């Protein structure tokens, strides 16, 4: 069974690569699980990075975090041995900022204090949009009521960085931003626009930030088959699943059908599987 899948995977890899040849012009690379796991770089990550720079390929590292500013992410990576510039990292916060600017929106920011830095220089007077990020310190009645009152003006909107239900913390599972976005959606009968990873808005904004308009010229490399690969494919990009970080054997089956002749599956032609980021880069940048 495993051998059958392996054979099919490499057959598809060659088939897919041929189809992709010359099409991929820019690379989006996930950070957590793809470049590093906690405080350790994944072997080959620096090589991959250097190859991207040497070949002058367009790229951005992407991350879902909405609790820390990009400058903090860059600092943390620097301490692991990977020197990136702020411009080389695109986070859900960056995408949110781009979305607000592109749509001329004046935000009321319900985001963590550490994230506020990303929104400096935006006009926040007389807000017409409430932006909700992961901000446990601000998920209380007083703050939510203020957001609610702003949203009761018919033309005002909700922008959610993401709608995660809960996440793992040191002392157990904790409520994510999603329930609080839903709190405001329920109170106001409005629907939030989600702009962080892995929403379509996120990938489109990331692509535009690099000067591209055609998602099929982009590839997203990541360890999360749902949030990295499927998310990108749904935005019209190509995807490459790497077998590090969050990856679990069998994840690729979510992209390929199993058993017998592979059925046409939307993701199949647009996805590769590679062992690590370095392998992915070598496959795609021979």
């Amino acid at each position, binding site marked *: 069974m495993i051998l059958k899948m392996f054979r099919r995977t490499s057959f598809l890899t060659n088939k897919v690569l041929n189809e992709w040849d010359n099409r991929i012009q820019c690379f989006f690379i996930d950070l957590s699980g793809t470049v590093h796991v906690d405080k350790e770089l994944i072997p080959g990550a620096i090589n991959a990075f250097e190859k991207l720079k040497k070949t002058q390929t367009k790229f951005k590292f992407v991350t879902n975090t909405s609790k820390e500013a990009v400058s903090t992410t860059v600092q943390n990576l620097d301490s692991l041995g990977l020197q990136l510039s702020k411009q080389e990292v695109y986070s859900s916060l960056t995408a949110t900022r781009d979305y607000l600017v592109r749509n001329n929106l004046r935000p009321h920011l319900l985001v963590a204090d550490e994230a506020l830095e990303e929104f400096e220089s935006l006009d926040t007077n007389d807000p017409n949009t409430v932006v909700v990020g992961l901000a446990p310190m601000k*998920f*209380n009645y007083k703050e939510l009521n203020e957001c609610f009152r702003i949203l009761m003006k018919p033309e005002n909107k909700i922008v959610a960085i993401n709608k995660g239900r809960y996440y793992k913390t040191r002392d157990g599972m904790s409520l994510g931003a999603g329930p609080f976005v*839903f709190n405001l959606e329920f109170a106001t009968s409005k629907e939030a626009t989600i702009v962080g990873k892995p929403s379509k808005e996120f990938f489109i904004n990331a692509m535009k930030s690099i000067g591209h308009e055609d998602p099929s010229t982009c590839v997203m490399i990541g360890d999360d088959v749902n949030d990295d690969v499927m998310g990108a494919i749904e935005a019209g990009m190509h995807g490459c699943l790497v077998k590090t970080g969050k990856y679990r054997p069998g994840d690729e089956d979510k992209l390929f059908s199993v058993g017998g002749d592979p059925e046409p599956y939307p993701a199949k032609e647009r996805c590769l599987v590679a062992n690590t980021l370095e392998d992915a880069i070598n496959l795609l940048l021979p």
Partner: protein
Amino acid sequence: MSWLEKPVKALLLDISGVLRDGDQAIVGSLEAFQRLQEIGIPFRLVTNETQVTVQKTVEKLSKLGFTSISPSLIFAPAPAVATFLKETLSRAFLLVHPNVLPEFDGIETSDPNCVVVGDAAEHFNYSRLNEAFRVLLRLREENKEMQLYSLGKGKYYKEEDGLCLDLGPFTAALEYATGADARIFGKPNPVFFHAAVQDMKMSPDEVVMIGDDILGDVGGAQRAGLRGVLVRTGKFRISDENHATVKPDGIVDNLLQAVNLIMSHYN
């Protein structure tokens, strides 16, 4: 005014938005209330108020001039759910306002197997919501039913300084986080309306509910077989007159107009 065509034998009145707005009596409501007591039409006060006990509600109304209201005339969610918790021997995590805790005297709170959400207002903070969430998550992981009881599910209400989030959005947040389905005690649950109607020994079609909440008061009453009349006071908004799903049996400016219409129609 189709709601007057059938006899109006008894009334259910909402409190907040019909009798009072925050700490003030609504214009005309005191007069309306006195008239009701004069003509002797039976009524019950049906409220989703859960920031304070029924006793306190009676006191607050009395201070505003709505006197001689016996606590037995008031139907509120907290006593209703407390009775239910006792009958089912439930152990509850109480995400409620501290001032309403006396209604839960005698309820076991250790090792909770259910969550009760009331209008905790400024006591809705991340830490308490997270605790409630973890109770539900633990039940789910133990393959037990996630019992989530909500004392109403109103979206917002009106205070003097503007609109305020009600408990509904917080119940909704817990439902979203866990996939639980809250059971509602209070408006708009038909059981709640029926309890008040039966207490007056009436049948639903003999009773009119007057309220400012198009969904909770009017919609809820109609689904319970009563007539629902909307007042243009309290949290009323113009858009409520053209609501997508609820068509009130009548719309009046305020309680006084409603009472005057009842009196002139039946004289």
